[in-house]
């Protein structure tokens, strides 16, 4: 990737990120209490998070195209995800859950272990 492409890419990401942060301050000041805004503000973030989880786990597709089709790191991904969920339900410490799950995944991938 050349330097200009990368700079353009970073500029777009920076502009889009700042836009979401500044928009309410310039445009929505008077609509803050509109029920549609409140509705989306309540339900869109959790939906986006859930979609991001699915997106991150998309390589695990045991039944895609009607046949067994699992990426080599599919099972470690699922197991590590269960580690994250268990740790988080147990201790509710975001850092611990993330480090624990990532450590488990790295160990499985680097040692080449799959069920």
């Amino acid at each position, binding site marked *: *990737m050349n330097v200009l492409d990368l700079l*353009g*890419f*970073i500029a*777009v*990401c*920076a502009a*889009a*990120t*700042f*836009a*979401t*942060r*500044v928009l*309410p*301050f310039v445009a*929505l*000041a008077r609509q803050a209490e509109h*029920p*549609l*805004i409140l*509705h*989306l*503000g*309540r*339900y*869109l*973030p*959790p*939906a*986006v*998070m*859930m*979609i*991001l*989880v*699915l*997106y*991150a*786990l*998309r390589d695990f597709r045991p039944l*895609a195209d009607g046949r067994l089709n699992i990426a080599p*790191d599919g099972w470690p*991904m699922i197991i590590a*995800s269960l580690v*994250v*969920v268990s740790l*988080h*339900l147990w201790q509710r410490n975001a*850092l611990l*859950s*993330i*480090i624990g*799950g*990532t450590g488990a*995944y*790295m*160990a499985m*991938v*680097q040692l080449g272990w799959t069920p």
Partner: protein
Amino acid sequence: MLNNDNAWRQAGVTTLPVMFGYLPLGAAFGILAIEVGIPAWGAVLMSLLIYAGAGQFLAVALLAGGAGLVEVAVATLMLNSRHLFYGLSLLRRFQGAGWRKPYLIFALTDETYSLLTTHTGDGGLDHAQAFRISLLNQLWWVLGSILGVLIGTTLAFDSRGIEFALTALFIVLTLEQARRLRQWLPFVIALATGFGAILLLPERHLLLGAIGAASLMLLADYRVRQAGGAS
């Protein structure tokens, strides 16, 4: 009235938990960026100019996946749409912040938002202290990124699999959202549109399709509720 040293020390203590989160997460970002071929200066520049945890991981994924700029813009807007609602609740709070206001808005990450809105006791934070907290948080993030870039380029450590930190972060955020909301609707909608997109759409349109469809379904749900409420 705090003197300057005291104010910074207090801001440091306030941001301590964020430091413990941002240093390793920023490092994971730096390592990941190096691994997909982003130069060191690019990774640090991203942390300086974009400054968004999940957003920067997504950016790396999109960059590695060869997504187009329009796609990148839309996906970033969608992912960060939650920030719209942070701003809404801080409209009054940031009033009168003067020259600090643009930076306060720029630096409004999930964690900074949590700190600024959680420390509301005794009249809340003044603008100067909110500014110190925001600045320190970004400092931890940038330092973490530099650390990660150094680790990633020296190859002192086998980082294969570190990208799972992203997945873990999203899982943790989803659990936190579920705990806060205690309703099935958005998760059912997300599962439906997410699986639908994975099965039907090509890789590069997957995220956009799923989130767009979810937004439309939430809009429809709003209409239905309005109609129901009106009758």
